[in-house]
């Protein structure tokens, strides 16, 4: 198909990388019987700059320009106004960062563990992953000069994705490992086939041990072992993939450096390579989606309540405490601070746009991969001074036709955040009337 060839070449050029032997698109989906629909979640911290986020006239804004200046993307984008997260502490000492971060995609009330706020149920990505019988690709860039690790007792800020109440789905933070996982070296020799045979033999034994142990446990502990067993089966799928690459070419980014072993500080407390890390992660996520390797990708920009310095945007400050917190009105507290908040959020928009454009560049069926995808970009706060009203929600893509149209703002007053999860599940084939602790909220009006 010439059109496909051209589009893929364009994508290849965008990645600046070589071609690669690749299985047929959607092979993994076909293997697992899951639908071709895809989901991408972006989670951002510290709120947005309200006056510069929402379109004032037309369908664009200073912050969203990287996304909406592209007409094709804009036509597939919906902005949801009025979203709020009800204050819920549920016995914890968390603040609004925690509430928004842990609740946005789980929908549940917080779970107190030692007084700290954890997500109270599975996040929407894991609900779908379990339903589809596949694994999601959880990505994050967590490097932070100000806060290399969450402060003591705040490990709940490491991930917004949950397998179940209190159980994180942890993100991958080294793009080299993501690359190896998505693009394993093709092994077709006899020695490699023997190796696969032995690995399967080992994993079968491990699965047997897991099943035995699970039988002796109560329901909660058994669930832990069941997750482990599912993981073992997913490893087997990955092993098979490494043996079966052939025929088709699929473009992909160049292999990133081995950060963990050559420059671990760039993954922990040195932000000098941070924009590059984000870029590679998004490109790898797009590769997974467009090449049919994974149907669900989550991307987390920093820890919950993160403290990036945004030196690459010319700010170089603790942008949580010294910038976002100072954005104390929708119009902005002072021009200098407002400009900083806008630049931060413009950056996030540019990265979301990068993903959307990568998916839009690849034809699929009568449209593009983006047409079969739903991208949901959420924020833990509405505004940087911990306001949890007007939390900006951006939906991109058509989810294989369940999202009928885009290019508009839903502005129908207050919308409880649970509608986001309900919308995502409905769009991707799960009939739900609510989500999390609001069982009858329905989806956002006008999306489906």
């Amino acid at each position, binding site marked *: 198909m010439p059109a496909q060839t051209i589009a893929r070449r364009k994508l290849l050029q965008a990645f600046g990388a070589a071609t690669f032997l690749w299985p047929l698109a959607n092979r993994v989906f076909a293997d697992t019987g899951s639908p071709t629909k895809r989901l991408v979640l972006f989670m951002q911290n510290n709120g947005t700059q309200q006056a510069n986020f929402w379109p004032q006239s037309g369908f664009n804004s200073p912050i969203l320009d990287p996304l909406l200046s592209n007409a094709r993307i804009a036509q597939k984008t919906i902005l949801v106004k009025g979203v709020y997260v009800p204050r819920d*502490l*549920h*016995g*914890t*000492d968390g603040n*609004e960062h925690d509430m928004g971060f842990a609740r946005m995609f789980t929908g549940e009330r*917080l*779970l*107190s*563990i*030692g*007084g*700290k706020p*954890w997500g109270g149920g599975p996040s929407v990505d894991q609900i779908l992953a379990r339903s589809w019988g596949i*694994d999601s690709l*959880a990505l994050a860039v967590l490097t932070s000069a*100000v806060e*290399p*690790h969450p*402060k*003591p*007792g705040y*490990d*709940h800020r490491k991930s917004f994705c949950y*397998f179940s*109440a*209190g*159980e994180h*789905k*942890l993100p*991958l*933070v080294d793009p080299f*490992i993501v690359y190896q*996982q998505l693009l394993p070296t093709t092994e077709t020799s006899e020695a490699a086939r*023997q190796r696969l*045979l*032995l690995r399967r*033999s*080992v*994993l*079968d*034994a*491990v699965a047997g*041990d897991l099943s035995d*142990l699970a039988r002796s*446990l*109560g*329901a*909660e*502990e058994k669930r832990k*072992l069941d997750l*482990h067993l599912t*993981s073992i089966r997913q490893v087997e799928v*990955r092993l098979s993939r490494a043996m079966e690459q052939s025929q088709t070419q699929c473009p992909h980014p160049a292999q990133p450096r081995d950060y*963990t072993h050559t420059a671990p500080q760039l993954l*922990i*407390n040195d932000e000098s390579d941070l924009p590059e890390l984000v870029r590679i992660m998004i490109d790898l996520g797009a590769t997974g989606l467009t090449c049919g390797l994974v149907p669900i990708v989550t991307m987390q920009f920093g820890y919950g309540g993160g403290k990036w310095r945004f030196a690459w945007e010319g700010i170089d400050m603790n942008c949580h405490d010294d910038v976002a917190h100072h954005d*104390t009105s929708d119009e902005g507290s002072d021009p200098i601070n407002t400009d900083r908040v806008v630049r931060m959020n413009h950056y996030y928009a540019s990265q979301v746009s990068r993903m959307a454009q990568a998916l839009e560049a690849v034809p699929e069926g009568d449209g593009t991969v983006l047409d079969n995808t739903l991208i949901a970009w959420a924020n833990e706060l509405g505004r940087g*001074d*911990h306001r949890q009203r007007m939390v900006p929600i951006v939906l991109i893509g058509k989810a294989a036709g369940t999202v009928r149209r885009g290019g508009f703002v839903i502005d129908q007053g207050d919308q409880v955040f649970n509608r986001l999860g309900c919308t995502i599940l409905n769009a991707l084939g799960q009939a739900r009337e609510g989500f999390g602790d609001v069982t009858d909220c329905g989806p956002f009006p006008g999306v489906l």
Partner: protein
Amino acid sequence: MGFVARCLVVGALLAEIGAGCVGRSTESITGPSRSEQSLQTWIFRKVRRLSNREYNNVVRDLLWDNTQPANAFLDDSYANGYDNGSALLTVQTDQAERYQLAAEQLAQQAVNNHLVQLLGGCIPDKPIPGQVAPSPGNSRPGADGGPCIDRFFETFPQRAFRRPPTADEMARLRGVYRTAAQLGGYPLGIQTTIEAILQSPAFLYREELGVLAEASGQPSTLTPYEVASELSFFLTGTMPDDDLLAAAGEGRLSSREDLRREASRLMQTASAQANVRQFFHQWLATNRLATVTKDPAFYPAFNSALAASMSAELDLFFDDVLWNGSGSLRELFTSTASFADERLGALYGVAGGPGFAPVSLDPEQRKGILTRAGYLTVHSATSHSSPVERGVFLRQALLCTQLPPPPPDVLRLAMMEQPDPSKTTRERFAAHSADPFCHSCHQYIDQVGFGFEEFDAVGAFRTTENGKPVDDSGTLLGTRDADGDFRGVGELSERLLISRQFQDCVVTQMFRFAMGVAETTDDREILGRISNQFSVDQPLLKLVLAIVDSPLFVQRMPEGN
């Protein structure tokens, strides 16, 4: 009661007491009202996945590997605050894949370098390059094994699983061996079997299941092998040694006297010393020194080498207090004896280095752990001393107080927290006290943090800031028994040492470290008994042994209660 149910119970309780700032401190755990015989644990039956640190320690002791392969594993989330096998650790696909890769590398290295040891000293007929001659009478092992292979299966799986393997587990391992040996001979068989062992749940999880009681709802008692594992991981952070496994297998790990004997023995090991250091570093959050950063615009001299010196000082200080000194909390919180190299000597104003040497710090400036540069550095912002951060941490970690979150509009005062060259840090935070809205909570936080104001964000002593004198007076409020004014960290430490709330909190922290869960109100009676038997003047190791001696160490409740 399952884990989530435990969390919901304590969450509801804390929500109830979280109605205002006053009275948020944890309730007293002053001891049981019932007889000791009627006390029971509310820790449920569970499996605890090895933490990354434990994994590194275990493969070191099991396979002679010092490469610390778990450093490349996923960075776990620890819900109970300690990295010692938290009850919520799971295995997602990315982690299962890391386990697989690590197992393959470890197994290959072990077979290449330690085959004879793996075979229990047995030497097959064909010498392996670099190994000694074969044992007489042994035939080359085939796919069905032989004496040397039997020896391997008799010893290695039991050490790796920390208990005898079940018949089904052994049958699976034998199957793996056969498949591999048919392809590549017995070395490949052994190697692949080790790969299976290192990925088995029997290796990756510590089992705390026990033998179910006949009466419904009654706690089960852990098996001797489970007790051996719990004891070893709690005290040494690694697998049981051969003596401990032998004691479990020979019925010598059943009575309280048996546990005390083995605990006392283990506490003499180097692994125990390293593990106690880990407890301190994690309790006090000084393990963050490895990655802490400071804003070079404010602290240009701070670098990773200085942070490493701070961390090394604390290691030496902890060891000195615990193993050479009284081992008491009083010494830990009042001692002026420490260690310094050249870098720290310059910061402390004492002669240090080259290398670390014992030093005596100025008692007017630095008494106890809270005045050490490492503690002060991790508990401060990148650009200032952060009285709020210091106050919050002390209340949460040393007094086990749950603080309420800032109210929604609290950030209207954020501007005042900006660096201001015309003010001291204390002056910048004064609005917290001036505004009644803020003061209602910040009186419990800032007034503690202000006591640290003689130390900047890298732990350097100061009497002035921005040309103005520093005020280190503070007030401890809202505690059960330690309220009052103080001046400086030395007096604050003394105030903690007279507080039962502080002592109870240390007991609670040790409980979390030991059990891999956060406590609930159901655990209060047992923790109260332990605290009753402890004091700040006794060796901390006595507290460790008291936990080993308690019902919570060997009993588990069935899930669903």
